[in-house]
Protein backbone atom coordinates (compact mmCIF):
# COMPACT_ATOMS: atom_id res chain seq x y z
CA UNK A 1 0.00 0.00 0.00
CA UNK A 2 1.32 3.41 -0.91
CA UNK A 3 2.29 5.84 1.78
CA UNK A 4 -0.25 8.38 0.59
CA UNK A 5 -2.99 5.79 0.89
CA UNK A 6 -1.81 4.78 4.32
CA UNK A 7 -1.94 8.38 5.49
CA UNK A 8 -5.51 8.65 4.30
CA UNK A 9 -6.51 5.46 6.10
CA UNK A 10 -4.74 6.60 9.23
CA UNK A 11 -6.44 9.99 9.22
CA UNK A 12 -9.81 8.39 8.59
CA UNK A 13 -9.25 6.02 11.49
CA UNK A 14 -8.38 8.93 13.73
CA UNK A 15 -11.48 11.00 13.11
CA UNK A 16 -13.95 8.86 15.02
CA UNK A 17 -11.98 8.33 18.22
CA UNK A 18 -10.89 11.96 18.24
CA UNK A 19 -14.49 12.79 18.84
CA UNK A 20 -14.14 10.87 22.10
CA UNK A 21 -11.07 12.80 23.12
CA UNK A 22 -8.51 10.14 22.40
CA UNK A 23 -6.18 12.69 20.91
CA UNK A 24 -5.23 13.90 24.37
CA UNK A 25 -4.07 10.45 25.46
CA UNK A 26 -1.03 10.30 27.71
CA UNK A 27 1.92 8.03 27.10
CA UNK A 28 2.53 4.95 29.23
CA UNK A 29 5.69 5.40 31.32
CA UNK A 30 8.36 2.67 31.22
CA UNK A 31 8.42 2.41 34.99
CA UNK A 32 4.77 1.29 35.03
CA UNK A 33 5.78 -2.00 33.43
CA UNK A 34 8.46 -2.99 35.87
CA UNK A 35 5.94 -2.48 38.69
CA UNK A 36 3.20 -4.55 37.13
CA UNK A 37 4.32 -7.92 38.35
CA UNK A 38 3.66 -6.99 41.95
CA UNK A 39 0.43 -5.15 41.08
CA UNK A 40 -1.15 -7.99 39.17
CA UNK A 41 -0.12 -10.52 41.80
CA UNK A 42 -1.73 -8.40 44.46
CA UNK A 43 -4.85 -7.84 42.37
CA UNK A 44 -5.28 -11.56 41.69
CA UNK A 45 -5.09 -12.41 45.38
CA UNK A 46 -7.57 -9.63 46.16
CA UNK A 47 -10.00 -11.16 43.69
CA UNK A 48 -9.38 -14.60 45.17
CA UNK A 49 -10.20 -13.22 48.61
CA UNK A 50 -13.54 -11.90 47.29
CA UNK A 51 -14.42 -15.22 45.66
CA UNK A 52 -13.35 -17.16 48.75
CA UNK A 53 -15.91 -15.30 50.89
CA UNK A 54 -18.16 -18.27 50.31
CA UNK A 55 -15.40 -20.79 49.77
CA UNK A 56 -17.56 -22.92 47.48
CA UNK A 57 -19.62 -22.61 44.32
CA UNK A 58 -17.90 -21.35 41.20
CA UNK A 59 -16.46 -18.32 39.50
CA UNK A 60 -15.58 -17.41 35.93
CA UNK A 61 -13.84 -14.31 34.63
CA UNK A 62 -12.75 -13.35 31.12
CA UNK A 63 -11.59 -10.07 29.73
CA UNK A 64 -9.33 -8.09 27.49
CA UNK A 65 -8.73 -4.42 26.88
CA UNK A 66 -9.50 -2.96 23.53
CA UNK A 67 -7.59 0.11 22.44
CA UNK A 68 -8.15 0.55 18.70
CA UNK A 69 -5.50 3.17 17.99
CA UNK A 70 -1.73 2.93 18.00
CA UNK A 71 -1.55 6.53 19.17
CA UNK A 72 -3.91 5.89 22.07
CA UNK A 73 -1.47 4.54 24.64
CA UNK A 74 2.00 5.20 23.26
CA UNK A 75 5.04 4.05 25.17
CA UNK A 76 7.22 6.70 26.71
CA UNK A 77 10.85 5.63 26.50
CA UNK A 78 14.00 7.75 26.74
CA UNK A 79 13.74 8.10 22.95
CA UNK A 80 10.32 9.66 23.00
CA UNK A 81 6.81 8.34 22.40
CA UNK A 82 6.46 5.08 20.47
CA UNK A 83 3.14 4.30 18.85
CA UNK A 84 1.71 0.93 19.78
CA UNK A 85 -0.67 -0.86 22.07
CA UNK A 86 -0.83 -1.47 25.79
CA UNK A 87 -2.75 -4.68 26.36
CA UNK A 88 -4.14 -6.79 29.16
CA UNK A 89 -5.86 -10.16 28.88
CA UNK A 90 -7.17 -12.03 31.85
CA UNK A 91 -9.02 -15.22 32.60
CA UNK A 92 -9.92 -16.77 35.93
CA UNK A 93 -11.88 -19.74 37.14
CA UNK A 94 -12.81 -21.44 40.35
CA UNK A 95 -14.91 -24.52 40.91
CA UNK A 96 -15.63 -26.70 43.89
CA UNK A 97 -17.50 -29.84 44.72
CA UNK A 98 -18.67 -31.67 47.82
CA UNK A 99 -16.51 -34.51 49.08
CA UNK A 100 -18.53 -35.14 52.19
CA UNK A 101 -21.73 -33.52 53.35
CA UNK A 102 -19.85 -30.80 55.22
CA UNK A 103 -16.64 -30.39 53.25
CA UNK A 104 -15.93 -29.05 49.82
CA UNK A 105 -12.77 -29.25 47.74
CA UNK A 106 -12.05 -26.82 44.95
CA UNK A 107 -9.42 -25.58 42.54
CA UNK A 108 -8.75 -22.13 41.20
CA UNK A 109 -6.70 -20.56 38.44
CA UNK A 110 -6.10 -16.90 37.72
CA UNK A 111 -4.14 -15.83 34.65
CA UNK A 112 -3.20 -12.46 33.29
CA UNK A 113 -1.00 -11.51 30.37
CA UNK A 114 -0.21 -7.88 29.89
CA UNK A 115 2.27 -5.39 28.57
CA UNK A 116 2.93 -3.26 25.56
CA UNK A 117 3.54 -4.27 21.96
CA UNK A 118 3.99 -2.63 18.59
CA UNK A 119 0.93 -4.42 17.18
CA UNK A 120 -2.48 -5.26 18.51
CA UNK A 121 -3.10 -8.98 18.75
CA UNK A 122 -5.01 -11.71 20.51
CA UNK A 123 -2.43 -14.43 20.76
CA UNK A 124 0.89 -13.64 19.09
CA UNK A 125 2.52 -10.29 19.79
CA UNK A 126 5.06 -8.72 17.46
CA UNK A 127 7.77 -8.71 20.15
CA UNK A 128 9.58 -5.65 18.86
CA UNK A 129 12.51 -3.81 20.43
CA UNK A 130 10.17 -1.92 22.78
CA UNK A 131 7.69 -4.67 23.66
CA UNK A 132 7.14 -5.88 27.19
CA UNK A 133 5.06 -9.04 27.48
CA UNK A 134 4.68 -10.75 30.84
CA UNK A 135 2.16 -12.97 32.53
CA UNK A 136 1.06 -13.73 36.06
CA UNK A 137 -0.53 -17.04 36.99
CA UNK A 138 -2.02 -17.89 40.34
CA UNK A 139 -3.33 -21.36 41.04
CA UNK A 140 -4.30 -23.23 44.11
CA UNK A 141 -6.54 -25.70 45.89
CA UNK A 142 -9.27 -24.86 48.34
CA UNK A 143 -10.94 -26.65 51.19
CA UNK A 144 -14.11 -25.43 52.86
CA UNK A 145 -15.89 -26.84 55.88
CA UNK A 146 -19.46 -25.66 55.63
CA UNK A 147 -20.59 -26.16 59.20
CA UNK A 148 -17.63 -24.35 60.73
CA UNK A 149 -17.66 -21.78 57.90
CA UNK A 150 -13.92 -22.13 57.38
CA UNK A 151 -11.97 -21.99 54.12
CA UNK A 152 -8.36 -22.81 53.58
CA UNK A 153 -6.73 -22.14 50.24
CA UNK A 154 -3.16 -22.17 49.09
CA UNK A 155 -1.05 -22.51 46.00
CA UNK A 156 1.62 -20.97 43.83
CA UNK A 157 2.02 -17.80 41.87
CA UNK A 158 4.24 -17.44 38.79
CA UNK A 159 5.46 -14.27 37.18
CA UNK A 160 6.83 -15.05 33.72
CA UNK A 161 8.40 -12.62 31.32
CA UNK A 162 7.85 -13.54 27.69
CA UNK A 163 9.70 -10.68 26.11
CA UNK A 164 11.45 -7.56 27.35
CA UNK A 165 12.67 -4.86 24.99
CA UNK A 166 16.07 -3.22 25.35
CA UNK A 167 14.81 -0.03 26.98
CA UNK A 168 13.34 -1.62 30.11
CA UNK A 169 15.20 -1.91 33.39
CA UNK A 170 16.72 -5.29 34.22
CA UNK A 171 14.40 -7.73 35.94
CA UNK A 172 14.31 -11.41 36.76
CA UNK A 173 12.58 -13.29 34.00
CA UNK A 174 10.67 -15.84 36.05
CA UNK A 175 9.70 -15.70 39.68
CA UNK A 176 7.85 -18.23 41.74
CA UNK A 177 5.81 -17.19 44.75
CA UNK A 178 3.51 -19.08 47.06
CA UNK A 179 0.35 -17.91 48.74
CA UNK A 180 -2.09 -19.01 51.40
CA UNK A 181 -5.53 -17.87 52.43
CA UNK A 182 -7.42 -18.69 55.59
CA UNK A 183 -10.97 -17.59 56.17
CA UNK A 184 -13.18 -18.06 59.19
CA UNK A 185 -16.61 -16.53 58.92
CA UNK A 186 -16.15 -12.84 58.13
CA UNK A 187 -12.41 -12.79 58.84
CA UNK A 188 -9.62 -13.76 56.55
CA UNK A 189 -5.84 -13.69 56.45
CA UNK A 190 -3.84 -13.86 53.26
CA UNK A 191 -0.13 -14.19 52.77
CA UNK A 192 2.15 -14.03 49.78
CA UNK A 193 5.66 -15.43 50.02
CA UNK A 194 8.84 -15.52 47.99
CA UNK A 195 10.87 -18.45 49.30
CA UNK A 196 10.97 -17.76 53.02
CA UNK A 197 10.31 -14.02 52.70
CA UNK A 198 6.89 -12.58 53.31
CA UNK A 199 5.94 -10.29 50.41
CA UNK A 200 2.69 -9.16 51.93
CA UNK A 201 0.18 -10.08 54.58
CA UNK A 202 -3.45 -9.04 54.41
CA UNK A 203 -6.03 -9.11 57.15
CA UNK A 204 -9.61 -8.66 55.96
CA UNK A 205 -12.72 -8.09 57.98
CA UNK A 206 -15.65 -8.49 55.60
CA UNK A 207 -18.17 -7.59 58.22
CA UNK A 208 -20.98 -6.64 55.83
CA UNK A 209 -23.85 -9.15 55.85
CA UNK A 210 -24.46 -10.65 52.41
CA UNK A 211 -27.53 -12.59 51.38
CA UNK A 212 -25.60 -14.82 48.97
CA UNK A 213 -23.46 -16.12 51.82
CA UNK A 214 -26.39 -16.75 54.10
CA UNK A 215 -26.62 -13.26 55.58
CA UNK A 216 -29.30 -10.60 55.45
CA UNK A 217 -30.53 -8.64 52.45
CA UNK A 218 -31.28 -5.55 54.52
CA UNK A 219 -30.96 -4.20 57.99
CA UNK A 220 -28.25 -2.79 60.17
CA UNK A 221 -25.85 -5.70 59.65
CA UNK A 222 -25.57 -4.89 55.94
CA UNK A 223 -24.12 -1.49 56.91
CA UNK A 224 -21.10 -2.96 58.64
CA UNK A 225 -17.86 -2.01 56.86
CA UNK A 226 -15.42 -4.20 54.93
CA UNK A 227 -11.96 -3.31 56.09
CA UNK A 228 -8.65 -4.73 55.03
CA UNK A 229 -5.14 -3.96 56.12
CA UNK A 230 -2.16 -5.05 54.03
CA UNK A 231 1.47 -4.99 55.06
CA UNK A 232 3.74 -4.84 52.01
CA UNK A 233 7.32 -5.87 52.40
CA UNK A 234 8.76 -3.52 49.82
CA UNK A 235 12.30 -4.84 50.05
CA UNK A 236 12.59 -8.32 51.42
CA UNK A 237 15.74 -7.77 53.44
CA UNK A 238 14.96 -4.33 54.85
CA UNK A 239 12.00 -4.64 57.12
CA UNK A 240 12.01 -0.93 57.87
CA UNK A 241 10.81 -0.17 54.35
CA UNK A 242 7.38 -1.64 54.98
CA UNK A 243 4.27 0.16 53.93
CA UNK A 244 0.75 -0.41 55.11
CA UNK A 245 -2.39 0.06 53.10
CA UNK A 246 -5.82 0.23 54.63
CA UNK A 247 -8.93 -0.12 52.55
CA UNK A 248 -12.43 0.69 53.79
CA UNK A 249 -15.52 -0.27 51.80
CA UNK A 250 -18.79 1.05 53.19
CA UNK A 251 -22.36 0.38 52.18
CA UNK A 252 -24.04 3.78 52.06
CA UNK A 253 -27.50 2.81 50.92
CA UNK A 254 -29.21 -0.56 50.49
CA UNK A 255 -26.10 -2.36 49.19
CA UNK A 256 -26.34 -0.47 45.93
CA UNK A 257 -24.34 2.62 46.87
CA UNK A 258 -20.86 2.21 48.27
CA UNK A 259 -17.93 4.39 49.20
CA UNK A 260 -14.39 3.10 49.23
CA UNK A 261 -11.29 4.78 50.57
CA UNK A 262 -7.75 3.51 50.70
CA UNK A 263 -4.96 5.03 52.67
CA UNK A 264 -1.24 4.34 52.84
CA UNK A 265 0.72 4.86 55.99
CA UNK A 266 3.02 5.75 57.62
CA UNK A 267 4.32 8.01 54.83
CA UNK A 268 2.23 8.26 51.68
CA UNK A 269 -1.19 9.16 53.05
CA UNK A 270 -4.31 9.21 50.91
CA UNK A 271 -4.19 6.69 48.06
CA UNK A 272 -7.60 6.49 46.40
CA UNK A 273 -11.32 6.91 46.88
CA UNK A 274 -14.36 5.79 44.94
CA UNK A 275 -18.09 6.21 44.96
CA UNK A 276 -19.81 3.21 43.39
CA UNK A 277 -23.40 2.74 42.39
CA UNK A 278 -24.69 -0.72 41.53
CA UNK A 279 -28.27 -0.52 40.21
CA UNK A 280 -28.62 -4.10 41.39
CA UNK A 281 -26.89 -5.59 44.40
CA UNK A 282 -25.62 -8.48 42.25
CA UNK A 283 -23.09 -5.94 40.88
CA UNK A 284 -23.61 -7.00 37.26
CA UNK A 285 -23.82 -3.32 36.35
CA UNK A 286 -21.72 -0.64 38.00
CA UNK A 287 -21.22 3.10 37.79
CA UNK A 288 -18.25 4.52 39.56
CA UNK A 289 -16.52 7.81 40.15
CA UNK A 290 -12.95 7.48 41.31
CA UNK A 291 -10.07 9.57 42.50
CA UNK A 292 -6.51 8.34 42.82
CA UNK A 293 -3.33 9.98 43.90
CA UNK A 294 -0.74 9.72 41.16
CA UNK A 295 2.62 8.22 41.85
CA UNK A 296 5.42 10.72 41.93
CA UNK A 297 8.07 8.09 41.19
CA UNK A 298 6.35 7.00 38.00
CA UNK A 299 4.37 9.96 36.73
CA UNK A 300 6.64 12.67 38.08
CA UNK A 301 3.69 14.42 39.69
CA UNK A 302 1.85 13.99 42.93
CA UNK A 303 -1.68 15.12 42.20
CA UNK A 304 -5.17 13.66 42.16
CA UNK A 305 -6.50 11.95 39.06
CA UNK A 306 -10.28 12.06 38.79
CA UNK A 307 -12.15 9.64 36.60
CA UNK A 308 -14.92 7.14 36.31
CA UNK A 309 -16.28 4.07 34.64
CA UNK A 310 -19.40 2.21 33.63
CA UNK A 311 -19.52 -1.57 33.72
CA UNK A 312 -22.05 -3.75 31.95
CA UNK A 313 -22.11 -7.56 31.91
CA UNK A 314 -19.92 -7.81 28.81
CA UNK A 315 -18.20 -4.48 28.43
CA UNK A 316 -16.70 -1.78 30.60
CA UNK A 317 -15.97 1.82 29.62
CA UNK A 318 -13.71 3.97 31.71
CA UNK A 319 -11.87 7.25 31.64
CA UNK A 320 -9.02 7.92 34.06
CA UNK A 321 -10.48 5.38 36.47
CA UNK A 322 -8.38 4.30 39.42
CA UNK A 323 -8.77 0.63 38.42
CA UNK A 324 -7.10 1.24 35.05
CA UNK A 325 -4.48 3.50 36.55
CA UNK A 326 -3.46 0.68 38.88
CA UNK A 327 -4.02 -2.34 36.66
CA UNK A 328 -3.44 -1.02 33.18
CA UNK A 329 -0.05 0.69 33.36
CA UNK A 330 -1.16 4.05 34.68
CA UNK A 331 -3.35 4.52 31.60
CA UNK A 332 -4.94 7.94 31.62
CA UNK A 333 -6.19 10.61 29.31
CA UNK A 334 -7.98 8.12 27.09
CA UNK A 335 -11.16 6.09 26.98
CA UNK A 336 -10.55 2.46 27.87
CA UNK A 337 -12.86 -0.23 26.59
CA UNK A 338 -12.61 -3.60 28.26
CA UNK A 339 -14.56 -6.56 27.01
CA UNK A 340 -15.07 -8.51 30.18
CA UNK A 341 -17.38 -10.87 31.92
CA UNK A 342 -17.37 -12.29 35.40
CA UNK A 343 -19.89 -14.41 37.17
CA UNK A 344 -19.86 -16.08 40.57
CA UNK A 345 -22.29 -18.70 41.73
CA UNK A 346 -23.07 -20.23 45.06
CA UNK A 347 -26.09 -22.34 46.04
CA UNK A 348 -27.85 -21.37 42.82
CA UNK A 349 -27.32 -17.63 43.35
CA UNK A 350 -25.64 -15.85 40.44
CA UNK A 351 -23.80 -12.57 40.91
CA UNK A 352 -20.71 -10.66 39.85
CA UNK A 353 -17.61 -10.66 42.04
CA UNK A 354 -18.28 -8.79 45.27
CA UNK A 355 -22.06 -8.91 44.81
CA UNK A 356 -24.33 -9.31 47.78
CA UNK A 357 -27.59 -10.51 46.26
CA UNK A 358 -28.48 -12.73 43.32
CA UNK A 359 -28.88 -11.34 39.84
CA UNK A 360 -32.44 -10.43 38.79
CA UNK A 361 -32.11 -12.81 35.83
CA UNK A 362 -33.39 -15.60 37.96
CA UNK A 363 -36.60 -14.00 39.12
CA UNK A 364 -37.48 -13.39 35.47
CA UNK A 365 -36.89 -17.06 34.74
CA UNK A 366 -39.22 -18.07 37.54
CA UNK A 367 -41.97 -15.75 36.32
CA UNK A 368 -41.75 -17.21 32.84
CA UNK A 369 -41.96 -20.70 34.19
CA UNK A 370 -45.16 -19.84 36.04
CA UNK A 371 -46.70 -18.39 32.90
CA UNK A 372 -45.92 -21.50 30.88
CA UNK A 373 -47.75 -23.77 33.28
CA UNK A 374 -51.15 -24.90 31.91
CA UNK A 375 -54.29 -23.75 33.68
CA UNK A 376 -55.75 -26.05 36.29
CA UNK A 377 -57.81 -28.82 34.68
CA UNK A 378 -57.26 -29.44 30.98
CA UNK A 379 -60.91 -29.41 29.95
CA UNK A 380 -60.80 -32.95 28.59
CA UNK A 381 -63.16 -35.72 29.43
CA UNK A 382 -61.29 -38.55 30.96
CA UNK A 383 -62.56 -42.06 30.93
CA UNK A 384 -60.05 -43.14 33.45
CA UNK A 385 -58.89 -40.91 36.32
CA UNK A 386 -55.28 -42.00 35.68
CA UNK A 387 -55.40 -40.41 32.21
CA UNK A 388 -55.80 -36.99 33.79
CA UNK A 389 -52.36 -37.24 35.33
CA UNK A 390 -50.73 -38.14 32.03
CA UNK A 391 -52.27 -35.16 30.25
CA UNK A 392 -51.19 -32.60 32.86
CA UNK A 393 -48.46 -30.36 31.52
CA UNK A 394 -49.14 -31.25 27.89
CA UNK A 395 -51.44 -28.37 27.12
CA UNK A 396 -51.02 -28.78 23.35
CA UNK A 397 -52.73 -32.17 23.02
CA UNK A 398 -56.38 -31.83 22.23
CA UNK A 399 -57.16 -35.49 21.60
CA UNK A 400 -57.28 -38.33 23.97
CA UNK A 401 -57.36 -41.92 22.89
CA UNK A 402 -59.05 -44.65 24.81
CA UNK A 403 -59.68 -48.21 23.76
CA UNK A 404 -62.68 -48.38 21.44
CA UNK A 405 -64.12 -44.91 21.90
CA UNK A 406 -62.59 -41.65 20.69
CA UNK A 407 -63.50 -38.41 22.37
CA UNK A 408 -62.52 -35.17 20.81
CA UNK A 409 -62.85 -31.57 21.95
CA UNK A 410 -62.21 -28.66 19.66
CA UNK A 411 -61.52 -25.09 20.74
CA UNK A 412 -64.63 -23.47 19.15
CA UNK A 413 -67.02 -26.17 20.25
CA UNK A 414 -68.08 -27.01 16.61
CA UNK A 415 -68.27 -30.74 15.78
Amino acid at each position, binding site marked *: *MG*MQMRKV*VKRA*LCILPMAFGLSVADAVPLAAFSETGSHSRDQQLLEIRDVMRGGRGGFLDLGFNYTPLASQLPLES*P*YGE*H*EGYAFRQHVAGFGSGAVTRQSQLGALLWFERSGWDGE*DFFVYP*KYNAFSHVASTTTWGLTYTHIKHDVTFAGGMQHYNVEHVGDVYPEESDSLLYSWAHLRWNHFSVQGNFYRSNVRFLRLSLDLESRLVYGGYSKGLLTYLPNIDLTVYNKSADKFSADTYRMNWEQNLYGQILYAEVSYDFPDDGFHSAALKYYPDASRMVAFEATCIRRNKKIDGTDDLLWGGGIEFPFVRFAYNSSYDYENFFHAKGTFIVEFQFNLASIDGFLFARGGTRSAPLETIKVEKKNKDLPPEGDGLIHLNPSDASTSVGSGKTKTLEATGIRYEKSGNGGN
Partner: protein
Amino acid sequence: MVRSAMKAFVRPLFALCVFCALPLALTGCLSHWFLESETRLQLENATEDYSIISLDVVALDGSIYSSWIRQTVLPGERSRVEEGDWIGEFKVRVKYTESKDASGDTLVDYRVLDFEGGSMYLQVTASEKGKLQYKFR
Protein backbone atom coordinates in the same frame (compact mmCIF):
# COMPACT_ATOMS: atom_id res chain seq x y z
CA MET B 1 -40.54 -21.72 1.41
CA VAL B 2 -38.81 -18.37 1.48
CA ARG B 3 -38.03 -18.80 5.09
CA SER B 4 -36.49 -22.24 4.64
CA ALA B 5 -34.48 -20.97 1.67
CA MET B 6 -33.25 -18.11 3.85
CA LYS B 7 -32.35 -20.56 6.58
CA ALA B 8 -30.44 -22.72 4.13
CA PHE B 9 -28.52 -19.64 3.08
CA VAL B 10 -27.87 -18.12 6.50
CA ARG B 11 -26.61 -21.28 8.19
CA PRO B 12 -23.55 -21.91 6.02
CA LEU B 13 -22.90 -18.17 6.03
CA PHE B 14 -22.87 -18.21 9.79
CA ALA B 15 -20.60 -21.25 9.78
CA LEU B 16 -18.29 -19.47 7.37
CA CYS B 17 -18.15 -16.43 9.65
CA VAL B 18 -17.24 -18.58 12.62
CA PHE B 19 -14.66 -20.38 10.50
CA CYS B 20 -13.12 -17.07 9.41
CA ALA B 21 -13.22 -15.61 12.89
CA LEU B 22 -10.82 -18.26 14.17
CA PRO B 23 -7.79 -17.35 12.04
CA LEU B 24 -8.62 -13.67 12.51
CA ALA B 25 -8.56 -14.18 16.25
CA LEU B 26 -5.22 -15.93 15.94
CA THR B 27 -3.58 -13.34 13.75
CA GLY B 28 -4.83 -10.55 15.93
CA CYS B 29 -6.77 -7.42 15.29
CA LEU B 30 -7.09 -6.14 11.81
CA SER B 31 -5.42 -2.80 12.18
CA HIS B 32 -1.93 -3.99 11.31
CA TRP B 33 -3.25 -5.24 8.01
CA PHE B 34 -3.34 -1.64 6.90
CA LEU B 35 -1.31 0.18 9.54
CA GLU B 36 2.42 -0.44 9.61
CA SER B 37 4.06 -1.41 12.86
CA GLU B 38 7.66 -0.86 11.75
CA THR B 39 9.59 1.55 9.56
CA ARG B 40 11.73 0.42 6.64
CA LEU B 41 14.09 3.29 6.08
CA GLN B 42 16.22 4.02 3.04
CA LEU B 43 18.48 7.03 3.00
CA GLU B 44 19.56 8.88 -0.10
CA ASN B 45 22.51 11.20 0.02
CA ALA B 46 21.37 13.86 -2.45
CA THR B 47 24.13 16.28 -1.51
CA GLU B 48 27.00 16.99 -3.85
CA ASP B 49 29.91 17.14 -1.49
CA TYR B 50 29.03 15.58 1.86
CA SER B 51 29.43 11.93 2.89
CA ILE B 52 26.93 10.49 5.35
CA ILE B 53 28.55 7.99 7.72
CA SER B 54 25.62 6.79 9.86
CA LEU B 55 22.13 7.53 11.12
CA ASP B 56 21.21 6.78 14.74
CA VAL B 57 18.24 7.49 16.96
CA VAL B 58 19.24 9.18 20.21
CA ALA B 59 17.41 9.55 23.49
CA LEU B 60 15.86 12.94 24.16
CA ASP B 61 18.38 13.53 26.94
CA GLY B 62 21.21 12.14 24.84
CA SER B 63 21.94 9.39 27.37
CA ILE B 64 21.57 6.42 24.98
CA TYR B 65 21.42 5.84 21.27
CA SER B 66 20.41 3.10 18.88
CA SER B 67 22.06 2.64 15.50
CA TRP B 68 19.80 2.46 12.49
CA ILE B 69 21.73 2.93 9.28
CA ARG B 70 25.32 1.75 9.71
CA GLN B 71 26.67 2.38 6.27
CA THR B 72 28.64 5.14 4.63
CA VAL B 73 26.56 6.76 1.92
CA LEU B 74 28.65 8.77 -0.53
CA PRO B 75 27.18 11.71 -2.51
CA GLY B 76 24.51 10.54 -4.95
CA GLU B 77 24.27 7.04 -3.39
CA ARG B 78 21.49 5.27 -1.55
CA SER B 79 21.76 3.14 1.56
CA ARG B 80 20.32 -0.34 1.97
CA VAL B 81 16.80 -0.53 3.40
CA GLU B 82 17.00 -0.96 7.15
CA GLU B 83 14.08 -2.02 9.29
CA GLY B 84 13.46 -0.41 12.68
CA ASP B 85 10.74 -0.45 15.34
CA TRP B 86 10.44 3.31 15.26
CA ILE B 87 6.96 4.75 14.93
CA GLY B 88 6.50 8.23 16.27
CA GLU B 89 8.63 11.36 16.58
CA PHE B 90 12.26 10.69 17.33
CA LYS B 91 15.52 12.58 17.49
CA VAL B 92 17.89 11.46 14.78
CA ARG B 93 21.65 11.92 14.76
CA VAL B 94 23.37 11.97 11.39
CA LYS B 95 27.15 11.70 11.26
CA TYR B 96 28.75 13.13 8.13
CA THR B 97 31.92 14.57 6.69
CA GLU B 98 32.49 17.58 4.49
CA SER B 99 34.17 15.50 1.81
CA LYS B 100 33.15 13.32 -1.11
CA ASP B 101 35.05 10.23 0.09
CA ALA B 102 34.13 10.19 3.81
CA SER B 103 37.54 11.45 4.82
CA GLY B 104 38.23 14.23 7.29
CA ASP B 105 36.55 15.22 10.55
CA THR B 106 33.21 13.66 11.48
CA LEU B 107 30.47 16.22 12.00
CA VAL B 108 27.14 15.60 13.74
CA ASP B 109 23.69 16.89 12.90
CA TYR B 110 20.58 16.36 15.07
CA ARG B 111 17.01 16.55 13.85
CA VAL B 112 13.60 15.46 15.14
CA LEU B 113 11.81 13.43 12.46
CA ASP B 114 8.34 11.91 12.36
CA PHE B 115 8.36 8.23 11.32
CA GLU B 116 4.93 7.09 10.26
CA GLY B 117 5.84 3.48 9.59
CA GLY B 118 6.10 1.48 6.40
CA SER B 119 8.60 2.18 3.65
CA MET B 120 10.15 5.59 4.10
CA TYR B 121 12.63 7.17 1.76
CA LEU B 122 14.69 9.88 3.38
CA GLN B 123 16.42 12.31 1.07
CA VAL B 124 19.22 14.41 2.53
CA THR B 125 20.19 17.57 0.70
CA ALA B 126 22.41 20.48 1.62
CA SER B 127 21.43 24.13 1.58
CA GLU B 128 23.68 26.77 0.07
CA LYS B 129 24.95 27.64 3.55
CA GLY B 130 26.01 24.02 4.01
CA LYS B 131 23.17 22.96 6.31
CA LEU B 132 21.72 19.44 5.90
CA GLN B 133 18.05 19.28 4.99
CA TYR B 134 15.84 16.22 5.38
CA LYS B 135 12.83 15.33 3.32
CA PHE B 136 10.71 12.16 3.12
CA ARG B 137 9.90 11.18 -0.45
